[in-house]
């Protein structure tokens, strides 16, 4: 039997039983589509979070006060306080490291921003001029915090777009006074609207000079220091430099935690990849069910086509050739189902993309390969038993009609 004949033979069988072929295609298609759609949701979530994290800055090293022996106690490190604060001088000392391009000390807190009779509680960020470049912030109007000695508490501030409209309405805000607590700040800039970024809405914040924030919250302690390394390769040297400098400044005690953006990203990436894989795997169970269906239908068709198979054998077709014919049929069905599934899955992904435009839904490359491949492999595996049964038929008995 030539390959062309084999294909022709299988094709006729597939076309001959329209309804059952359609149903098998449907079953396979649902399986493949499910794997594609589900894994593209997982992948979309992964890319979304990774992008959000990436948009925090590039080559970032983050310094937190406090350190913990057990890794599980992260939350304590995240918001807790320490007897020895991370100070502004600590931050400025980090500039000694040749691997550091720029850095921004950070103080956060909640303050009540008031203008005229309107008042609103807003997150207050104390930082320096370099924060803008490190965090890739974009201004809509005016300018950012002035450069200069960060120890000087200049009474200026930059506010988020939403806060500007809520406090001032359509009036121009540049040059207006904003009161926070007992302090007054002149608004020198308004941030462009960015929306949520990792649960922190930059449209509602107030950014003031770090020294002003220290006075406002009556604290010396920095919440974080954001450090940007000069290049990707210099992240590790920057990290060790920072640890060394702060150890020297803190009387030889290692009481800070230095994490790199890459390390955090990698952790998120790993967890979300694993989740996507798991969810895709769950969806793939349906492919196994579709495989069972193929086996079932083929077993029936072996019984129904006894005469035909007997004739083929009588004409000189060998057992392996008969087997091959059945495998070809299974592969054809699987291919059809996989194509259908890929198309439907892709359509589904586009549809969800329309509902949540901010999340980049896209099927991961492994799902695009693995889903059709799994479909074909299951189809072939499950057609082994029917094919063997067909190949073992005795031509004489088969032709004699039971």
């Amino acid at each position, binding site marked *: 039997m030539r390959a062309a004949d084999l294909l022709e033979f299988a094709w006729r069988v597939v076309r001959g039983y329209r309804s059952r072929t359609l149903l098998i295609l449907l079953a396979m298609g649902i399986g493949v589509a499910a794997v594609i759609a589900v894994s593209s949701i997982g992948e979309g979530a992964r890319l979304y979070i990774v992008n959000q994290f990436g948009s925090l800055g590039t080559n970032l090293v983050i310094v937190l006060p406090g350190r913990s022996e057990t890794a599980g106690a992260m939350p304590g490190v995240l918001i807790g306080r320490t007897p020895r604060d991370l100070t502004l001088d600590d931050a400025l000392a980090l500039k000694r490291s040749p691997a550091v391009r720029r850095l921004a000390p950070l103080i956060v807190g*909640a303050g009540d921003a008031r203008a005229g009779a309107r008042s609103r509680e807003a997150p207050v960020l104390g930082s320096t001029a370099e924060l803008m470049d490190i965090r890739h912030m974009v201004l809509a109007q005016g300018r950012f915090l002035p450069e200069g000695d960060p120890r000087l508490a200049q009474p200026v501030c930059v506010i988020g777009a939403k806060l500007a409209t809520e406090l001032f309405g359509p009036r121009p805000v540049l040059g207006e006074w904003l009161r926070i607590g007992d302090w007054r700040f002149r608004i020198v800039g308004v941030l462009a609207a960015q929306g949520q970024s990792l649960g922190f809405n930059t449209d509602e914040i107030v950014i003031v000079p770090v020294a002003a924030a220290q006075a406002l919250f009556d604290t010396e302690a920095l919440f974080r220091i954001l450090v940007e390394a000069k290049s990707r390769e210099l992240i590790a040297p920057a990290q060790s430099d920072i640890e060394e400098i702060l150890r020297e400044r803190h009387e030889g005690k290692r009481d800070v935690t230095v994490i790199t953006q890459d390390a955090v990203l990698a952790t998120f990436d790993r967890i979300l990849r694993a989740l996507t894989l798991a969810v895709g795997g769950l969806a793939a169970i349906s492919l196994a069910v579709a495989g069972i269906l193929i086996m079932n239908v083929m077993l029936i068709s072996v019984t129904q086509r006894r005469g035909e198979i007997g004739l083929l054998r009588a004409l000189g077709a060998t057992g392996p050739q008969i087997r091959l014919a059945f495998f070809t049929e299974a592969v054809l069905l699987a291919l059809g189902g996989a194509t259908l599934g890929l198309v439907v899955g892709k359509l589904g992904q586009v549809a969800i993309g329309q509902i949540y435009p901010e999340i980049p839904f896209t099927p991961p490359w492994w799902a695009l390969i693995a889903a059709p491949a799994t479909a074909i492999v299951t189809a072939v595996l499950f057609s082994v038993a029917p094919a063997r049964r067909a190949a073992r038929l005795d031509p004489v008995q088969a032709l004699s009609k039971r």
Partner: protein
Amino acid sequence: MFLADFVRFTVASLAAHRLRTLLTALGIAVGIAAVMLLTAIGEGLHRFVIAEFTQFGTNIITVTPGTITTHGASLGAVNTARPLSIDDALALERARYVKVVDPLVQGNAEVEYAGRGRRVTLYGVGADFATALSMRVASGEFLPHEDPRTPRAFAVLGSKVAEELYGAENPLGSRLRVGGERYRVIGVMEAKGQVLGFDLDDTVYIPVARAIDMFNRESLMEIHVVYEPTVPLAEVEAEIRRILIARHGVEDFTLTPQEKMLEVFDTVLTAITFAVSAIGAISLLVGGIGILTILTIAVAERTSEIGLLRAIGATQRAVLLLFLGEAALLAALGGAAGLALGWGVAWLLKLLLPALPVHTPWLYAVLAECVAVAVGLAAGVLPARRAARLDPLEALRGE
């Protein structure tokens, strides 16, 4: 047709094609087992998380400064222009319905004993902390009731700190350096283990006023209020609001009742369980298509039989019911096998991974079986209608 005939007929047609029946039922079984197992894991996780939370009691309200929250944590706890003070906590103690009030400051500090040092989570708490969060003291006692503004320098250790710093030695009465200050150890807590990522044993508890001084803060991070469990939550909240607004002039704090947190967790976990089971249910759908396919083939094969049935007086309705019954029975068999399979795997998981919480509620099992039968019936409708609509004459002529 009598019911007995009906059952006999259906069973006979399934028994005639054993392998076919087996494979079709297997498709449904895999689907049901997947749904069953995933719900079991989801439900187990659900119960695990809720249990972790309720071990501290459910009648707790947490008061945090400020009204902004990010990532579920109050931003005001870090720094705020509107602080919560120890006096606020004392004022809340006098409120109606309130049983226990516990001010809290948390941080990270180094503790030292006999040359051995360790970085731990430091809690500045009131004397009622252990009561409020239903934690027990293993030896010694918890911080004493005294004027919370000028407390003595006593410390209580978490079990892990005691073990790491003292080994076999008895820590009670010893002098411990906490963040450069000297404290007398008066108690060791019972081991509590990890709770949702927090290691509650790697901690040291000191009086809250001393922690505020040590961290050079002005204010508390949060105040826990334990109220009478019989009083409605809304009244307690109103009472706390009234007192704090009277003291602060405006509502510049957030109340987070434990009950509300539990509700949020409950919703999220239910949604996750549902989503994961829905993914498992895709296999069930494919299994249903399997039944549809097989019945379609069966109708084609048994045309003459159906014709005969109709010719000797079976109504269209009877034929329809016959095929529907066959579909339902197939699915029910598959469903039962799936339940057994799901249960078996869940049981195996429990043996192999005791850490993974698995819980299979009876209700879900019954529900899953019903779903299986429903899927079977839905899949049977098309082929059964086709069979019922066959013209007896045409069907018999095919022979």
